[in-house]
């Protein structure tokens, strides 16, 4: 176990059901207390839903697991209300450097522009992420975590799911309207339901050795191909909090994991990488290889799969935990509408559609990275080495080097929930894209745009002057805010002296023009944004019928 982190052991207490012997029906049960399951619990509880989370253990995750949390994930954590502790503890980074043999051949900045609240990435150990999510959950009365609750059976019925759970006091049954299966790579729910878990194993082996050392290396992701200290293979160095450093060594396909992970074999590798005189301690050592697998469908009746239970991939690109949390971002607002009876059950099919699409993209990217590091035959080895050698001399070859295509939010191209553009728009904010952040002024104070757009549908109306907005239009916006599925409107304007609120709508001042620029907005431009901050439609002028049609589409309201 790690020396730099102290594990709190959470208490097992018998549930009410165990005490009364009565089976209860919960709206949502989540199985799995990793970053995905915990994020789902926070999101559901924030929406006012009662949620029960079952975890078979009584502490946060052990070992060296996810560490790189991407900007989009941080924006989700911000929406959940959990990001501050993570930003305070985490190590911020934006720059990566690639080395071939002895020299740097390429560097990249993952967030080369200003005007975003969050950086491209923070590094933060998975156990800290879980700890902060748990601490937040403990403040929410609607959320209940049941520790040492291990799922042993699941029965899916038309209108509910029945679970059998084992505990230190013996088994009990419970029921739920919907079950979120966030129980990880070895998901028992997936096995119990007999689902195909198709994919491949990459034979290549990698050694993680996290070390504790005080060093002045910058907080950048450093990657090597064929360095002197690991000839013919790759290596990685990345800073984490608590003076812990992630070191990664590619071992080849035929390495013996037991031999490779012995301290007497690891320490020389570390010294070869960092220098003979560097003082360090081994914090964690493990050897691993990767799977690339996913379910064809993340929805099975009332069971919704998310995170590693739904998709597994190689770590290069940091797409595992990040996509699990982004699965939750996509799922919970839909589940809330369905549970409230405001959208049909068919809306949950769009969760699977959109996130299966995302998982395919993530598996493709991460698969390409492993293949670049571990070419499958002579010909692809030649291609790979050609790229590395050309990169020494020619800039064009450098972006071809693939040490990981770092995680970015998936764009839902052609999502059934999006309404295609009628008008011409420049820039990136197309339907299916998550909103860009931007600095704004709210009530005279400096603030950020994204946290204003959350948890409900939001309409963004750009107006050169508030007074010029027709009364009829304002009346229609008010009506939309009072509809069954409300659309909360935000007005974006430019004059510095704009009030914080106008006719009941929040006003944001786009003082530095970032919003107008990023959204290619003119006077009258209107965007419709989903509760997960993804754009679903936009027009050059507000039209109530079109907005309502887009909302209908985004919630599958016309599906019988």
């Amino acid at each position, binding site marked *: 176990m790690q020396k730099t982190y102290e594990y709190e052991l959470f208490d097992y207490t018998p549930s009410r059901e165990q005490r009364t012997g009565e089976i209860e029906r919960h709206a949502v049960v989540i199985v799995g207390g990793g970053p995905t399951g915990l994020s789902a619990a926070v999101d559901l509880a924030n929406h006012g839903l009662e949620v029960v989370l079952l975890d078979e253990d009584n502490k946060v995750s052990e070992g060296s697991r996810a560490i790189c949390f991407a900007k989009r994930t941080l924006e989700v954590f911000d929406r959940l209300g959990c990001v501050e502790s993570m930003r305070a503890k985490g190590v911020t980074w934006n720059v990566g450097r690639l080395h071939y043999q002895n020299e740097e051949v390429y560097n990249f900045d993952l967030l080369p522009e200003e005007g975003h609240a969050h950086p491209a990435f923070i590094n933060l150990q998975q156990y800290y992420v879980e700890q902060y999510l748990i601490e937040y959950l403990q403040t929410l009365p609607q959320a209940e975590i049941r520790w040492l609750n291990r799922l042993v059976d699941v029965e899916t019925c038309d209108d509910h799911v029945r679970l059998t759970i084992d505990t230190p006091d013996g088994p009990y049954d419970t029921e739920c309207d919907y079950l979120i299966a966030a129980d990880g790579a070895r998901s028992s729910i997936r096995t119990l339901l007999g689902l195909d878990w198709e994919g491949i194993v990459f034979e290549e082996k990698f050694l993680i050795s996290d070390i504790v050392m005080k060093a002045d290396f910058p907080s950048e992701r450093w990657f090597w191909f064929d360095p002197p200290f690991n000839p013919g293979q790759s290596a990685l160095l990345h800073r984490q909090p608590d003076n812990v450093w992630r070191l990664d060594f590619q071992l080849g396909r035929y390495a013996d994991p037991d031999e490779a992970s012995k301290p007497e074999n690891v320490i020389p590798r570390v010294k070869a990488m960092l220098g003979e005189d560097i003082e360090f301690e081994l914090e964690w050592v493990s050897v691993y290889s990767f799977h690339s697998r996913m379910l064809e469908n993340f929805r099975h009746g009332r069971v919704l799969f998310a995170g590693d239970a739904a998709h597994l991939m190689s770590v290069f690109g940091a797409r595992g935990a990040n996509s699990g949390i982004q699965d939750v971002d996509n799922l919970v607002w839909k589940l809330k509408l369905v549970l409230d009876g405001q959208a049909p059950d068919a809306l949950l099919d769009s969760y699977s559609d959109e996130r299966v699409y995302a998982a395919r993209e993530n598996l493709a990217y991460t698969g390409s990275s492993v293949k670049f590091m571990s070419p499958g035959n*002579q*010909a692809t*080895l*030649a*291609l790979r*080495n*050609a*790229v590395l*050698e*050309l990169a020494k001399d*020619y800039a*064009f*070859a450098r972006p*071809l080097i693939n040490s990981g295509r770092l995680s970015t939010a998936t764009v839902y191209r052609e999502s059934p929930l999006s309404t295609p553009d009628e008008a011409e728009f420049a820039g990136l904010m197309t339907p299916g894209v998550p909103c860009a952040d931007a600095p704004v002024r709210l009530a005279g104070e400096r603030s950020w745009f994204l946290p204003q757009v959350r948890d409900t549908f939001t309409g963004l109306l750009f107006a050169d002057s508030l007074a010029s907005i027709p009364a009829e239009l304002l009346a229609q916006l008010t009506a939309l805010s009072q509809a069954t599925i409300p659309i909360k409107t935000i007005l974006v304007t430019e004059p510095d002296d704009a009030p914080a609120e106008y006719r009941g709508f929040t006003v944001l001042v786009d003082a530095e023009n970032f919003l107008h620029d990023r959204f290619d907005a003119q006077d009258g431009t209107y965007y419709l944004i989903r509760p997960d901050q993804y754009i679903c439609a936009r027009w050059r002028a507000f039209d109530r019928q079109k907005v309502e049609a887009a909302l209908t589409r985004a919630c599958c309201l016309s599906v019988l």
Partner: protein
Amino acid sequence: MVTTKLRLDPRLKNPDEFYKALADLHADASVEQSLVINAKLVFILANHIGDHDVLMEAIEAVKANEAIA
């Protein structure tokens, strides 16, 4: 094979010279080195071409030719 952007009509100004230069490039190379040499040339020429559609059509042309080989 009909292509929309890839030019398959004769355009080499000095075909024999090019052929010889290419063969000479490999003259002293082992099989493994030759694989890398060819790969480098492919990347250099592909970058010069730039147009993704042309590159993909070229790959399709190879596949089609492989099928009849």
